[in-house]
């Protein structure tokens, strides 16, 4: 019997067009993505390039597995339908009386469905294989064909996952006899999976996360998380330990699920039903019709088909459809699951360095909406189908279709029901936000903000999808196929960018999103959002007219018939409606196109890439040509917050500091309308209006020491209804000088960096920056190429209700013609790097010695001002005590909207500071988090020394002296303020951050002192290195060396300092035995692999404890692609191997000092706390080590490098409990 049912099922699918449509869609999108990743669209969009091999085992896994996720949405309609079909066709009433066993029935059904989905996955695999190798892909990033990798992904991950999810869906559909329930289950499973992985992303939870991830992805990640580029390219995927446990666990779960189906399934006629709503209103019943015969005398009632009544009817009918959705168990389930999960998601709101953010409304909205976007879309897509086909599915369509209700009433009622469901779900978002805020005791409910964002802005977005959903589901006769098509559209449309379709006007329901900040509200993003949504709403309404024309009334028609019905229905009226909508649609679309393509030049990503090439080809030759240097800047900047305009004028005073005469001036400016005027006669000999690079010929050469003045004006192009042309915000403008003002000479910042792409364009390989040992390359700071230290003066004006700020000290403030003017002047030399801020600020003031401290903040953001003030003082203390005096008489922290970014940036005596990175942090001493408002403030203040006093030359490693140093100061200040034990939180995050982010490197990773400016090196690795260094040689010794260094180089002129100079200073104070540390940490990329292997303790007679520890220490080096080396030179590798080990442990020769720690327990205020019993550096010369240590108290835990000071690729085995 098994084979009969089984083959029958397979035949059924092979005959079904839906199977081939699924296969075709999956085939096409898989080819699209794999080919896109392999660079097939390089000729029309940005080049892929890079050093990553796209079809490495890892790459194949990612692509294959990623595409297979789509299959999960097919499970209900394939595996679920195998059994559902029998219910639907009422075959089950016959079938279930036949003499076959439950086992053969269930297995045949399940396995046949499984085979079908497996075949579809096979199609994906095939498409991926082909996609990578399609002609036109970049052969340099495609490696040799590796069948094993496909097979590995298929067998270890995809098939077991399909079995698991298939079994769950099969069970749900079997017991509920409801395919929709199957879909909701898939959505819920994805929901839960994403959430648990999010919650368990902390390092200590990763083993657990790996075990319980039903996809198995987290178990793979457990081993491959820190794979470098070279390892990602070369290594095969591991299949061991956790991965095997994970796979077995989930196959087991699948078995149990299927077993439960087997146990509880019975060949019965009715489904297990759960009834949630029981309403029985009592009403007296009197029976009249006793006999068989009554006179039919229908009461007179009014039949009304007026437009208004029809509208009312649609509303009424919608209620019935609405109830059908929301009263069903699947919907209730998704709302409950969604609510719970949204609450859990919210509990992790804005976690930065382990510290959460206050649940301000925009933040809760962001998180809760984020969790609901996909579910709302999926429910829309699914239920659009369910509603459109509801009559057909219930076989009530003939009753409905012969009623005199016009088609539009029918589809309108479906649409209304759908929109109501969306509103309900959006209300759940709001509910979860408000519940969470209440729970946190945050009672500043901005209900109108919730309502406006959810029920107006978000709702528009979802409603436009509802229109598309109704159209597709009407066009496609099969609700599940319709769902799948919609899903592909929903995910795929934004990705068309990969194929060079970049403008949103060509992609349904795409467009700029709105962005909210407490300071600036929705700002100017609101208008563009609404313009695009209006545009797509019109587009959606056009689809709605087509929905009406294609609406099925009566017996399902062939497509040809439907077309002829379409033609019949298409009359003057519908034509008119379409015409009106189309005029609106094309009108807006046309205007957007005109604004973005014709009136303003639009550069596609491809063109931008080509421009960068052109820039280098045209102007690189002028690099290093002598130019006068800016020595003084005096600017007038007028900001118009209401009109979002600015205009500015200014003067650069320049001097020829070189010893040669200068005859040409290379003026690099932006595309804002500008004028330039020199105070010496010049001729414009070259004007480039695309790249904005002009060359002026000086009539008389500028002799060494001669000066020159440039007067310039700049303003924004007029803003139009469709386009804003300035960086000004209504409240919270933040503009720096590079955005507005001209520069001199060639800037290399926009050169292409990827060598493969460069080769394609005929550019030579580049080495990014010169090496610090290149003494000819030290003429510029890494901030500016046309200035050293400047005098600065600025007058900034803004509207009367705002405060405008620039570096310098306020000289005068006045109001004229309803505008407020501020005149600032700096009394000392600063870098040519300054910014302008304007907003309605509150000001908090304080003092540190003679220095005025001010925080300019948004009203309502008072939460952490004290912490920040404390941070300012602590940083001023530490830096001035350890390095050099503070150069200014004032410190100003200036809040700016989060829409401008989530960072803080140090300008001379001013620190613009995003509202999202400290102002709303929820620092809690009980938590494991870092007090980051304090830490970031300390870091930014430290930049007043490390960047604004000490500034590196524009060569490799320059950011070590600014960012790494500021990070070091921040850590040290934190340590002094909060104690050593607090440092572990920070170091752990830094270590994980470094190890994780380096895996995304696509070009190269250099050692710290030669870094290319990557954040993960100069922040994360930098902080680890300097912290460890201070531990090895002592904070005081290190700081003294640094102080000497600072004294020597601060405010220096060219040649500027380099990382070599700084490291040399450190080297001087480092004892010989620790010189290796300098090499490991600064000069090479060295990673440790330390672990405890065995530990024992016994109580001695004298009451002390002897602890015997066995541990391994090994280290290796990475080259700049992440390839491992275990020695300095050939043959010096040391190794260790026991009989049990398959492979030996290898290491670079060791003479290293490593912390060995033993910890006991002590009670503080009733809480158990760790107590350090022993901590000493031991000299280690071999990989495997055994030591015995005697401690006074009972030991609990033992560790090698227990505080994770070293860069260790597996930091969770450094400690072991006794």
């Amino acid at each position: 019997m098994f084979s009969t049912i089984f083959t029958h099922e397979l035949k059924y699918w092979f005959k079904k067009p839906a199977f081939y449509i699924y296969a075709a869609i999956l085939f096409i999108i898989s080819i699209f993505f794999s080919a896109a990743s392999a660079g097939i669209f390089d000729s029309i969009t940005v080049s892929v390039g890079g050093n990553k091999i796209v079809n490495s085992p890892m790459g194949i896994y990612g692509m294959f597995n990623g595409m297979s996720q789509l299959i999960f949405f097919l499970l209900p309609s394939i595996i679920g339908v195998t059994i559902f079909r029998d219910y639907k066709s009422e075959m089950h009433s016959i079938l279930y009386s036949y003499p076959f066993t439950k086992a053969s029935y269930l297995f045949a059904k399940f396995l046949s469905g499984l085979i079908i989905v497996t075949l579809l996955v096979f199609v994906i695999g095939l498409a991926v294989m082909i996609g990578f190798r399609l002609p036109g892909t970049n052969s340099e990033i495609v490696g040799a064909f590796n069948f094993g990798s496909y097979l590995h992904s298929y067998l270890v991950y995809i098939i077991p996952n399909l079995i698991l999810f298939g079994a769950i869906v099969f069970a749900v559909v079997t017991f509920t006899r409801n395919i929709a329930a199957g879909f909701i289950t898939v959505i819920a499973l994805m929901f839960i999976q994403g959430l648990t992985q999010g919650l368990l992303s902390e390092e200590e939870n990763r083993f657990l996360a790996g075990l319980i991830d039903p996809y198995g992805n987290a178990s793979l990640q457990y081993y491959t998380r820190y794979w470098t580029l070279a390892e990602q390219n070369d290594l095969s995927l591991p299949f061991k330990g956790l991965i095997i446990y994970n796979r077995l666990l989930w196959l087991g779960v699948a078995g149990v699920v299927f077993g439960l189906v087997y146990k509880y399934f019975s060949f019965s006629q009715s489904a297990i039903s759960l009834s949630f709503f029981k309403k029985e209103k009592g009403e007296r019943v009197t029976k009249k019709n006793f006999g068989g015969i009554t006179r039919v005398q229908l009461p007179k009632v009014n039949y009304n088909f007026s437009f208004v009544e029809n509208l009312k009817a649609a509303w009424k009918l919608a209620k019935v459809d609405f109830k059908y959705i929301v009263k069903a168990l699947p919907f209730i389930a998704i709302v409950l699951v969604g609510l719970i999960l949204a609450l859990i998601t919210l509990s992790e709101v804005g976690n930065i360095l382990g510290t959460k953010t206050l649940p301000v409304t925009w933040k809760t909205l962001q998180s809760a909406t984020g969790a609901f976007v996909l579910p709302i879309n999926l429910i829309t897509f699914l239920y659009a189908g369910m509603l459109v086909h509801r009559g057909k599915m219930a076989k009530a369509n003939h009753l409905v279709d012969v009623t005199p209700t016009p088609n539009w009433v029918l589809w309108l009622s479906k649409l209304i029901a759908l929109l109501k469901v969306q509103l309900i779900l959006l209300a759940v978002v709001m509910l979860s936000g408000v519940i969470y805020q209440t729970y946190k005791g945050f009672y500043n409910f901005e209900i109108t903000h919730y309502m406006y964002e959810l029920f107006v802005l978000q709702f528009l977005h979802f409603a436009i999808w509802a229109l598309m959903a109704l159209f597709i589901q009407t066009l496609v006769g099969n609700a599940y196929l319709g769902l799948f098509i919609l899903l592909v559209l929903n995910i795929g449309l934004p990705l068309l960018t990969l194929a060079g379709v970049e403008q949103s006007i060509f992609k349904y329901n795409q467009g700029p999103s709105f962005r909210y900040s407490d300071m600036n509200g929705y700002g100017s993003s609101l208008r563009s959002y609404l313009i695009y949504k209006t545009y797509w709403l019109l587009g959606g309404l056009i689809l709605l007219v087509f929905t009406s024309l294609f609406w099925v009334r009566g017996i399902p028609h062939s497509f040809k018939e439907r077309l002829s019905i379409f033609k019949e229905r298409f009359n003057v009226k519908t034509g008119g409606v379409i015409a009106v909508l189309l005029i609106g649609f094309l009108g807006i679309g046309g205007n957007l196109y005109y604004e973005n393509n014709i009136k303003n030049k639009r550069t596609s990503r491809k063109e931008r890439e080509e421009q960068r090439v052109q820039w280098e080809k045209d102007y690189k030759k002028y690099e290093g040509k002598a130019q006068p240097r800016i020595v003084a800047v005096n600017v007038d900047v007028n900001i118009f917050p209401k009109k979002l305009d600015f205009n500015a004028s200014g003067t650069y005073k320049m001097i020829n500091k070189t010893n040669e005469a200068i005859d040409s001036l290379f003026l690099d400016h932006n595309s804002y309308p500008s004028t330039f005027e020199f105070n010496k006669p010049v001729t414009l000999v070259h004007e480039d209006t695309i790249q904005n690079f002009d060359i002026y010929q000086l009539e008389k050469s500028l002799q060494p020491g001669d000066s020159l003045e440039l007067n310039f004006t700049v303003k924004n192009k007029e803003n139009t209804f469709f386009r804003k042309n300035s960086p000004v915000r209504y409240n919270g403008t933040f503009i720096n000088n590079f955005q507005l003002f001209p520069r001199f000479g060639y800037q290399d910042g926009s050169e292409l960096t990827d060598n493969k792409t460069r080769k394609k364009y005929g550019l030579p390989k580049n080495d990014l920056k010169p090496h610090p040992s290149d003494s000819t390359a030290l003429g510029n700071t890494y901030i500016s190429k046309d200035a050293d230290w400047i005098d600065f003066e600025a007058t900034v004006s803004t509207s009367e209700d705002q405060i405008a700020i620039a570096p310098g000290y306020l000289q005068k403030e006045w109001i004229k013609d309803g505008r407020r003017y501020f005149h600032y002047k700096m009394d000392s030399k600063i870098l040519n790097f300054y910014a302008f801020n304007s907003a309605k600020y509150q000001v908090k003031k304080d003092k540190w010695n003679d220095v005025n401290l001010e925080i300019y903040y948004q009203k309502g953001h008072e939460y952490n001002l004290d912490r920040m003030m404390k941070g300012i003082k602590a940083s001023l203390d530490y830096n001035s005590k350890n390095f050099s005096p503070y150069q200014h008489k004032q410190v100003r922290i200036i809040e700016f909207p989060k829409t401008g970014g989530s960072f803080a940036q140090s300008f001379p005596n001013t620190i613009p500071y995003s509202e999202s990175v400290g102002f709303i942090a929820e620092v809690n001493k009980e938590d494991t988090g870092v007090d980051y408002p304090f830490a970031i403030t300390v870091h930014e203040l430290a930049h007043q020394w490390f960047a604004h006093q000490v500034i590196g030359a524009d060569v490799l490693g320059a950011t070590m002296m600014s960012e790494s140093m500021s990070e070091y100061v921040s850590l040290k200040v934190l340590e002094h303020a909060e104690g050593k034990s607090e440092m572990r939180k920070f170091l752990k995050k830094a270590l994980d951050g470094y190890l994780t982010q380096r895996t995304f490197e696509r070009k190269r990773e250099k050692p710290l002192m030669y870094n290319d400016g990557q954040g993960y090196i100069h922040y994360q690795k930098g902080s680890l290195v300097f912290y460890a260094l201070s531990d090895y040689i002592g904070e005081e010794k290190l700081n003294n060396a640094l102080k000497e260094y600072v004294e020597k180089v601060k405010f220096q002129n060219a040649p500027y300092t380099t990382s070599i100079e700084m490291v040399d200073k450190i080297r001087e104070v480092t004892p010989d035995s620790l010189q290796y540390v300098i090499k490991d940490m600064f000069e090479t990329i060295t990673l440790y692999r330390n672990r405890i292997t065995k530990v024992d303790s016994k109580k001695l007679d004298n009451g002390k404890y002897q602890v015997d520890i066995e541990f391994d220490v090994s280290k290796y080096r990475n080259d700049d692609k992440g390839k491992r080396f275990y020695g300095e030179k050939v043959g010096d590798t040391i190794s260790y191997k026991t009989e049990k080990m398959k492979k030996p442990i290898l290491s670079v020769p060791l003479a290293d000092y490593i912390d060995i720690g033993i910890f006991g327990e002590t009670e503080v205020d009733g809480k158990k706390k760790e107590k350090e019993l022993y901590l000493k550096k031991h000299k280690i010369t071999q990989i495997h080590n055994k030591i015995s240590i005697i401690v006074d108290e009972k030991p609990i835990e033992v560790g090698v490098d227990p505080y994770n000071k070293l860069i260790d690729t597996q930091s969770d085995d450094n400690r072991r409990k006794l």
Partner: protein
Amino acid sequence: MRLVIENLTKTYKNGVKAIDNLNLEIGTGMFGLLGPNGAGKSSLMRTIATLQSPDGGSITFDGINVLKNPMEFRKTLGYLPQSFGVYPKMSAEDLLDYFATLKGISSKADRQKIIKEVLEITNLYEVRKKYVAGYSGGMKQRFGIAQLLLNNPKLIIVDEPTAGLDPAERRRFLNVLREVGTNSTVIFSTHIVEDVKELCNEMAILNGGRILKHTTPLESTKEIEGQIWTKSIDRDDLEKHEAEYNVLSSNYNEDNSLNIRVFSETQPSEDFIATKPQLDDVYFIALKQDEPVTA
């Protein structure tokens, strides 16, 4: 109030000619459409009910061009398909309210009034709060009638409504239908001759998409008065008789002999006894005459 069908043709994608150049005129009263399974009854009814469009021909009712102006026609139409389902988890009352809305009754009071009435008529009032999906076959058919009455239709089409009903249910159903049919046109398709005999004042016999005979039950039996003969034969003699005579039907008696009915203008032979014509005879004569002659 006449339904006029002219030259109606409908061929399905699989080549089956479900309606073949059909002409029919139906007046007020109960009209029985009699035909074997697959005769095209349902196709015809669905076409009249505007659920599918014919390839050619025209249908007019009471001056309304049904094919051109289906919406207007639907206002006067009550239709009960051969089989239908209902939305699950909805009571008769709620469902009828839904249909009443679809049928254009905008006032809530009106809807309540008429729903109460149709529930009374169909004897579903006590079970009005029960889910229709859980109704028995007969109740469900009565519900079908209830929903059909909501728009006080002038033309009622019921497609094989008595199939599968127990005798009591069938009786009740026919009674209701009869009541309903007194002041409107009811087209009633069935393959059960008995139904037509009991109910219809006019009838047509349909097969192969064509009208074989358009008559009234009374007239049609009168027409063949004296031409129906019966005889009791052995089972084994049936084939011989069939070859010799125009055998319309044959029924087993209790003793395993067969009773055959033969159509003939004159007494076929002496052992045949004249009998009173029945509507069945009319039906079988019509079908037989339509059979292609094989040589």
